[in-house]
């Protein structure tokens, strides 16, 4: 079975927010909710860098571990989905999530949270009908054999989505091609000691 993953290559991301827009469009998410965001560190400085973030569909998902209603589940493709019928909007998934993925529409009195919403890897969610699924969770492109629209639309192919192995292979090729000793991820002071590009090229 596939293990679906996102990866954002920070050396390619040009902060165009195309993925954010694509996601909004594909899933028709409600006002105020934005499942994907682009974070820029040190904007305007020489070491500026951007990265697109949404739910990363963690293997050992913290949201899943803390949810009082136990409404999360993992699909066979490794996608973390949740059941909005069970969610009570307690916010615990947000406290635990490393990526700030869960969001809440504020629909009730006293700032009480509505039902949690997050990226579904364009895989919809539990529902009786297709219409209900679209209404609650947005599109289910996975069921149509398509990958998430954000990654499909990414103009620089910084954002990759797909089976972990495929994503890793593409990234490994880039690392080899760039010849970065430190795997294109960081100015690792250890770079000369552990030459990641070399490793990547020789691991196949």
């Amino acid at each position, binding site marked *: 079975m596939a293990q679906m993953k996102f990866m954002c290559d920070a050396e*390619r991301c040009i902060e165009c927010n195309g993925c954010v827009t694509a996601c909004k469009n594909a899933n028709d998410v409600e006002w105020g909710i934005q499942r994907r965001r682009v974070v820029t*560190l040190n904007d305007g400085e020489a070491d500026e860098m*951007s990265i697109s973030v949404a739910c990363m569909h963690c293997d050992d998902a913290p949201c899943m571990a803390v949810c009082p209603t136990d409404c999360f589940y993992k699909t066979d493709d490794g996608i973390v989905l949740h059941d909005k019928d*069970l969610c009570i909007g307690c916010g615990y998934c947000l406290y635990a999530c490393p990526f700030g993925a869960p969001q809440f529409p504020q629909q009730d009195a006293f700032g009480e949270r509505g039902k949690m919403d997050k990226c579904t890897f364009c895989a919809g969610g539990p529902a009786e009908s297709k219409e209900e699924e679209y209404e609650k969770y947005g599109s289910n492109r996975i069921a149509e054999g398509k990958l998430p629209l954000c990654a499909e639309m990414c103009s620089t192919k910084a954002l990759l989505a797909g089976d972990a192995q495929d994503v890793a292979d593409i990234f490994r090729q880039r690392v080899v091609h760039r010849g970065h000793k430190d795997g*294109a991820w960081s100015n690792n002071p250890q770079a000369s000691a552990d030459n990641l590009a070399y490793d990547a090229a020789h691991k196949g």
Partner: protein
Amino acid sequence: MNLLTAQAPGGVPRSGKGLALGICRFMLVALALVLSLGFTQVAAAQADPDREMTTAAPGITADQWRQVRSGETGPNYRDSRADSNYSLINSSGETWREIRNRWVSPFGLIAVFGMAALIALFYFIVGRKELEAPRTGRLLLRWTLMKRALHWTVATLFIILALTGMTLLFGKFVFRPLFGDGIWAWMIAATKVLHNYLGPIFGILLVILLVSLIKDNIPKKHDWVWFKKGGGMIGKKHVDAGFANGGEKAWYWLLATVGILVIASGFVLDFPNFDQSRDTMQWANIIHAVGALGLTAISLGHIYIGTLGTEGALEGMTMGYVDETWAKEHHNLWYEEVKDQTLSEQEVAARKSSGGSSEPSATRTS
């Protein structure tokens, strides 16, 4: 902008099918040639890692990783989400998860059920504390109607909050497999609504109750002796106690400290619309859960002593009056102060029928 130095794979555009004229095709071939020439040059340049390093947009530095890890955002941090002030990585989330799931959850369960087991054991070994002397039939007013009403409202709310709180923490392990999703969805939603709305009401009433009882709960020297003698269990001799004994005062001050902490942290969790940060709410949750589970465990002791454990104690909180003998045996210093105010059962009945709230407010100072 962090521009790419490596080109997108398969960068050559696909040629249009169909009406491709010769000239057009020629131009495409020429274009492809130029492009691929360019590519090989770039690729050749990049084959030298050191050269690439000097021309590429800088990679991510150790400093940036530190920044990400610490969650600090700084003036040049941008997040394209409208109302978001989240850092890139919420690194305390995992710590919160570990503390809650690994420590608070199992040890909370052990505290509450362990306490229940200890009390049951105590009851079977030591048993109920009966009155030693026979009742005199003369009664003393201990709790006015107002205080009894307040006590039982707070107690009821406490029990509902403890049960709903524990359902939030443990319910998914018990009720979801037991009842199935349909009922569980309804049950957990009701749990949250009850907990989140009754919590603040409990908070306000508890503060009123604490204020109304503070006079009786100022610690005195004899309370210390009361503790050293285990409330009279060590040495089997009566120990001095005023209106409240040492144990009751300890419960009072526990509620006045930990209880207030639980209420305060509950408020932080309850109203997420004050822009409190994720980190604040993580801490509030831990303080809330530890305090609440601790209080729940200890409240079992309070409930036991007030009902099954002590003959004559419950009467005071239900009817308002206690027997003279009970007062003498359990609260001798208080008894000394009020012993001239005893009433016969008939007198009490007469008072109650003429409107229970016209009870004298006299009675306690010690």
